[in-house]
């Protein structure tokens, strides 16, 4: 029983981290049809900002590490994605890959590929005992932050004017523009929110792991995409669910794998995902839109 509870907490905390990344990615995809690989690098950049500012008071660090990615996200939207906005999804995917390579190599040039360590938030990595279950402060914070973000995002999308515009743009971009929604505002907002989410996720992952390299964000962003694809590209709820599912899968596979195969855990997780996609290629919660022929 204790083991089940322990596994549940582990799965929930890992899943909530993945869900946070997946939300940012799904938001951009839902509205702009862009699968933004560069989100992973925004995550990495947030981590590096944490390292650079680690000596400052922690609210400032959080602010800086969120603001940096937002600025970059807006620049990315303005200079890389806006010129190709009408292009096919394939071209947009390649553009996002190119932007990601640009950011990674920029980081490589400025920060070199020596791993950087930080002890920011190290108090949160100490074990915390809740009854018979052991977890860490950062794991609980992950769950908390994700829940708060999900609630705030839902409120914004359902109750605010900009949320209405975002939902309209996600449903039919052209029509919403004809009805007066400014495309540039919508895209900028989406990139900003997604970048802020990436920044948050980056901060928490940095606290959790403590070591940074320029390719830090690659595995999280892939998991985010995989989670968003499982959930059905374009559905925010699906993306969050997908994140939790991948987190749960990871924990289950970890506990089930025999000792020698432990390092291959990620390979098994991705294999399981591919099997899932075989069974339901459109994802768990595919939006009910059809496709124009």
């Amino acid at each position, binding site marked *: 029983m204790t083991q089940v509870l322990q596994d549940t907490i582990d799965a929930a905390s890992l899943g909530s981290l993945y869900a946070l990344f997946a939300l940012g990615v799904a938001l951009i995809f839902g509205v702009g049809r862009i*699968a933004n690989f560069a989100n992973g690098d925004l995550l990495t950049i947030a981590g590096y900002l944490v390292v650079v500012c680690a000596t400052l008071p922690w609210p400032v660090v959080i602010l800086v590490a969120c603001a940096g990615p937002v600025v970059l996200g807006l620049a990315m939207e303005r200079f890389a994605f806006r010129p190709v906005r009408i292009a096919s999804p394939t071209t947009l995917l390649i553009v996002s890959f190119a932007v990601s390579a*640009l950011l990674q190599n920029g980081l*490589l040039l400025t920060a070199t590929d020596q791993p950087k360590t930080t002890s920011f938030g190290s108090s949160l990595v100490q074990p915390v005992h809740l009854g018979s279950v052991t977890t860490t402060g950062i794991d609980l914070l992950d769950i908390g932050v994700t829940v708060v973000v999900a609630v705030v995002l839902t409120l914004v999308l359902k109750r605010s004017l900009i949320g209405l515009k975002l939902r309209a743009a996600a449903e039919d971009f052209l029509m919403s523009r004809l009805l007066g929604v400014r495309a540039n505002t919508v895209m900028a907002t989406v990139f900003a929110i997604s970048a802020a989410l990436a920044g948050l996720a980056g901060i928490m992952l940095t606290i959790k792991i403590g070591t940074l390299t320029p390719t830090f964000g690659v595995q999280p962003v892939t998991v985010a995409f995989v989670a968003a694809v499982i959930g059905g*590209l374009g559905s925010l709820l699906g993306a969050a669910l997908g994140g939790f599912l991948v987190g749960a899968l990871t924990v289950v596979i970890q506990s089930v794998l025999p000792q020698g195969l432990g*390092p291959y855990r990620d390979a098994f997780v*991705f294999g399981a995902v*591919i099997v899932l*996609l075989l069974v339901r290629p459109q994802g768990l919660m595919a939006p009910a839109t059809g496709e124009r022929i």
Partner: protein
Amino acid sequence: MRAAWPIVSLLALVSAIALILPGVSAGLSGAVVAALINLILVVGLYVFVGNSGVLSFGHVTFMAVGAYVCAILTIPTIARAIMIPNVPSFVPKTAIATIPAILAGALLAGVLGVIVGVPIVRLTGLSAGLAMFAVLLAANVVFSNWSPGPGGAGILTRVPTDLTVAGTLMWALLAMILAYLFQRSRWGLRLRGSRDDEHAARSLGVNVTAQRLQAMVLSAFITGIGGALYGHYVGSFGPDAFYIPTTFLVLAMLVVGGIDSLAGAVVGTLVISVISYALNQWTNDLPVGPITLKLPAGSSQLVVALLMLGILIVRPAGLMRGRETALPRLLAGAPRSKTRSGPVRAR
């Protein structure tokens, strides 16, 4: 003549460059071999991506399989006990010749192409590309934790470096011929139809899933050849050689040249190979002809990324615009409009 001209012109172009450059400067043979290997990888990627319209971010996995298999089979017999103590027992104890080893590597890559392809080709374009990326990550995890050699972490050394420009050129020409024959065959044409309009193709009876799988297998085979040659070019490698920087470089070469045509693959490889070579020389404080610049490390990738972004914004169809090389006016007979290799696409 008209049908053969695109491939003949490309074969001639590649052969000419590959054979003349080492004559100009002996130091260029290495660069030429590297460029030819890149060409094979790009052509391999093109066979799948260009014909099906589905992006694949994980093709470098096939390169890895080709490289590891060929390397394990060709590490010299005297070194085998030390270099690869941890391989399974069905691996022969004596090294085999390079050419069969390359083919073996490519064949196994093709097998992986079937295994991976069966689930992937059922997904829509975007999901398929992302799923292939997940395959790449999984493969990287597997190779990094597998230790066939004493170095651990998937590193292999003492692979014989016995490539010649002429030998590599033969493989490159083979890859290009295979790609061209495929794209002109009825399977390739059906696949291109599904690329241009999937619903129309299905309504005409094209089995899109099967066609994509065929392309994936051929593509994996060719990429496996490239990987096997890569192993023999560098002599020692680890799983990092088959990860994101390589994926990006190969994709950049294809995108810059133009995804939809073989000529695009060739031209893109040529352009980026030249620029990469120059930048790498300058990063290492070496002259390129009369010019020497001082560049920080990593600039080569940065410039390639900027170039790719620029092409995507200014000329999204790539330098060749998705067309093959056109028959020169003189040989074309009566005056006609420029040849096109595909229908006009609404973007």
